[in-house]
């Protein structure tokens, strides 16, 4: 055997050792396809590496993980929620909203199930702002209260990687089951 043959054997052996160590440490390459409405984050060794959009992505299974999510708008609708106002009246309300993931990494970290975030935030904001109001202010300044509600929700959602696309308080009925001033139930809007 000439020197070239020995060199080939030497390099082949070195290559085999290198390949064995490389695949042992890195894992095996796989490919993940994300659809146009999906975004993801690639984690390597448990740490976020980079955000990825739709398309084909190589992931080294064993050391890398592609966590992906749906960025299509999430619809939130609640009806017949009841809140007590500051003057003792009760209000029944309902709202509908749409929110969309704009930062998938923030969304992934925001909760165990990020799709619950818009509903939780909107329910909190609606109840908080309505409870801080009274029957008269709701009748006189309904639009500004709803606007504040939406702005508050927008800020909170942005912190979790969402954008509030729309918010509408479609149902608001003010009444009371106690009649603190002997007033009948009032219908503001529905």
């Amino acid at each position, binding site marked *: *055997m000439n*020197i070239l043959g*020995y060199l080939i*054997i*030497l390099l*082949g*052996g*070195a290559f*085999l*050792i290198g390949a*064995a*160590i490389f695949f*042992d440490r890195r*894992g095996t390459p796989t490919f993940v396809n994300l659809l146009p409405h999906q975004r993801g984050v690639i*984690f390597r*060794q*448990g*740490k*976020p590496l980079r955000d990825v959009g739709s398309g084909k992505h190589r992931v080294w299974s*064993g*050391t*890398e*993980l592609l*966590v992906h999510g749906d960025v299509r708008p999430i619809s939130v609708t609640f009806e017949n929620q*009841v*809140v*007590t*106002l*500051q003057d*003792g009246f*009760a209000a029944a309300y309902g709202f509908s909203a749409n929110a969309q993931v704009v930062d998938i990494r923030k969304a*992934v*970290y*925001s*909760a*165990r199930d990020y799709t*619950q*975030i818009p509903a*939780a*935030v909107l*329910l*909190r904001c609606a*109840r*908080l702002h309505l*409870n801080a109001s009274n029957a008269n202010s709701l009748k006189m300044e309904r639009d500004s209260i709803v606007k504040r509600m939406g702005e508050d929700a927008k800020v909170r959602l942005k912190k979790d990687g969402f954008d509030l696309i729309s918010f509408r308080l479609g149902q608001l009925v003010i009444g*009371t*089951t*106690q009649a603190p001033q002997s007033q009948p139930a009032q219908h503001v809007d529905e």
Partner: protein
Amino acid sequence: MLWHSLFLTPDDFAAISSGLVGAAVVLVLSLTQRYRGRKRILITDYRCGLRFINGEFASILPPGSYRYNPQSEQITVIDMRPQPMLLERQVFQDVVGAQAVISIGTELVVNDPRLVATALRDQIKDSFVIVRDTVRSAASRQVVAGLGDNRKSIAVSLLQAVNAELAKVGMRVPEVEITELWASTPVVQQGSASGVVQ
């Protein structure tokens, strides 16, 4: 000749090459044998792994990639991300006897993954019951009626009470936001206070 300049004879070179290839084959075979029957798990930085060996707690695994033998080792993964929680319209009687209603918004977070894994069957459902019961009992020790807007002090009291209970099972809430609070004016009748909210 090259082997003369390297002080290697063709026989030396052949021996080294053969040895290297042999080592490569042995390495590949030993790696295959070593990882036969073993599983690999990847723990992201928002999760936490608990390694149990033969049923005994061994260690907490930080983010990374791990191999383990499922025949002798178990790895339980705990999700450390917050879980939003709303507790709405809890009706109670405050310390002066006024009927009151409270709603809170908060998040459940794992504080001690090892304790959570061993103390709770369902982290969220079990913690929810603890929070609800604690809020009811802690709120009834507060004065809600007639003190103006005392949400902050009540929220602090609730936070402390809830976290004291949740600490027993390895959970906590980072903050409590009172989203609804109202109490009727207490009506004193024959030495006792009572009121109606709805």
